[in-house]
């Protein structure tokens, strides 16, 4: 179980492919995104993302995931990473503290959320992954994007921020695979 930054595009995942997750830190917590729903990661230095990024003419509405999860507020940093997510027709972007890389594991290694968690968080997470002597929470991308779906979907009007956007690394492909 190792983390590696993917540099090359590979074949599309199949139902038998081991699941891949992008491991990030948000609000001091390890949070994992399902890699197949990631459109890319934006990296920017020295400038705070104040608005929803537009990539190749497509708007990724900014989602305040830290706020929804009531995670500690992040202090301003020199480097900002933004994960671009897409699920069906909806898209959103999530600002993260750090991107650790992509983790490829066996399905059996995605542990269920313990049954003692009985609240709405059961919809927020798909499970748990052992990571770095700790645990990463696997986010339910549908839930992450849900707020946007309820809001009527994303506009594709480009914003002025497009020029500062740059796709990063190998998970920039539209359908990143492992």
């Amino acid at each position, binding site marked *: 179980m190792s983390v590696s930054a993917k540099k090359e595009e590979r074949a599309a995942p199949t139902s038998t492919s081991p699941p891949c997750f992008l491991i990030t830190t948000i609000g001091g917590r390890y949070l994992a995104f399902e890699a197949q729903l990631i459109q890319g990661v934006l990296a920017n230095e020295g400038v705070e993302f104040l608005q929803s990024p537009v990539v190749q003419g497509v708007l990724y509405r900014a989602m305040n995931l830290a706020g929804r999860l009531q995670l500690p507020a992040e202090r301003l940093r020199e480097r900002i990473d933004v994960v671009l997510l897409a699920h069906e027709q909806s898209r959103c972007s999530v600002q993260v503290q750090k991107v650790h890389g992509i983790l490829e594991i066996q399905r059996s290694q995605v542990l269920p959320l313990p049954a*003692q968690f*009985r609240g709405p*968080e059961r919809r*927020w997470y798909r499970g748990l992954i052992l990571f770095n002597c700790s645990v990463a929470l696997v986010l339910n991308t549908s839930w992450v994007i849900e707020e946007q779906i309820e809001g009527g979907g994303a506009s594709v009007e480009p914003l002025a921020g497009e020029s500062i956007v740059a796709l990063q690394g190998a998970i920039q492909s539209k359908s990143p695979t492992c």
Partner: protein
Amino acid sequence: MLRTTGNSRHHGMPRSWHVMVFSVGGRRLAVKTLEVGDIGQWGESIPVPGRTPFVTAVIRRNQTVLPVFDLAAVLCRTIQGNSPLCLRVKHALGDMVICIDEKIPVLQTLDHSVIQAYRGTDVPAEGSYANGEEEIPILSVSRLGMGSW
């Protein structure tokens, strides 16, 4: 890590309860020994954002992840000592852990006749027993984290 005290009887006596007495924020509580998994040093807990009352974190033990039940929060107390202990209990939904005071827990055997209904409402209890002026609840582990009690 455990020591025995009190009126120990031979295991298997039908009219006795074997309990382990521990402390949370100085408050003494008991749990049936059959519902105790193990006890060790408390490690770092990993917060899990959510809305389940008193279940807001997990701990990792090697390849196992266990939910944390925050009994100190239930009791509105603060764990005492610099080296708190981790009490693992057997719950119907799966084992979970409780952070308890560093004071070493004590095993006791209680005669059934000394067990009474618990008069408090702060924790779910199968009963209680008197220790001097103190009423010590015997936790109902199966009801921990299962809503109001």
